[in-house]
């Protein structure tokens, strides 16, 4: 069985937070869903 690593769960959740922040930053503060919707409205 995997050993209990006190900090691992905390670290994983922190990484999720950092990943999302990074993505939001790259998308100019918008969610992926918002950007897809915006892109789709421009299809001709």
């Amino acid at each position, binding site marked *: *069985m*995997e050993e*209990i*690593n*006190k900090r*691992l*769960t*905390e670290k*994983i*959740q922190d*990484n*999720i*937070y950092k*990943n*999302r*922040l990074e*993505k*939001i930053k790259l998308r100019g503060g918008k*969610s*992926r*869903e918002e950007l897809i919707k915006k892109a789709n409205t421009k299809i001709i």
Partner: protein
Amino acid sequence: MPEIEEDILERIDALALNITENRQKGLLVLYYPEEDGEVVIDDISDIDDELRRCFGASKVDEIDILIHTNGGSPDAAYRIVQHIRSIANNVYILVPFHAYSAGTLICFGTDKILLGTFAALSPIDIKLKTENDNSDEIEENDNDDEIELIAIDKYIEFVKYCKKIIEDAGMKTNLEDALLVEMVKQIGAINIGSFFRERELTKYYAEILLSDYMLKDIPDKEKIIDYIIEMMVFKFPSHEFEIDYNIAKRLKLVVENMPIDLSDKTKSLIKLLEEAMENGLICRYMGNRYRLPFFRLYNIREE
């Protein structure tokens, strides 16, 4: 971090590892906060990080998913479960309390659903938030801008019913024009169009998942799949309709009740996660209306 709070995370890990040990397979916990948590496309890369952390580039024979969600994007649900399937040959899903809507769609992509005592799934009818540019500023009554597609279906039934009553009384009427115009005015023509488009997509996802995974070995599966989709996507009366073990069994989904011990443990795990969230340890807010999920894969030690 205060000791008592740190203890919650340890208790979460200990309980999850206990479930892992009893079930003898890895346990992927997908916990979405009930308030402001939702399944979104960005979840896939975080789930992938967890799968890679534990399994590297290898595939595994089987895995359990433990899920708790009120729903979210059907596109995300479809892609999350497809991604998990690309790594695990057999997938079982544990639902301690509920996996509604997009959570139910994820269940369709597994081999078996194990429901906790009084746990439930829900229809996968579409519920869309209508667009509002100031959505971050609206803190209260935020359900007011949500509409269920089934409500539109029922309204159209109501219009037909009204017309029939009047015509049965020997009168002529164009009442339906006024009623339908009013509906389009309230919801918006574009919104109605996207409702129907989303429903077709959801139906398509459900067909693929049921056919390729949950019902893959069932003879005559096409008929069963058509029936499940008809009920889950079109017929059940409301998004909030609860599909318990008995209804799920009637629908011919591959479903079992969890043994009581497993049910108790998985429910306790969800309660601990809620406690950790309330203490600000997990599921941080990003903006005013979106809260992060908790993901963690607990793996059995390789022999």
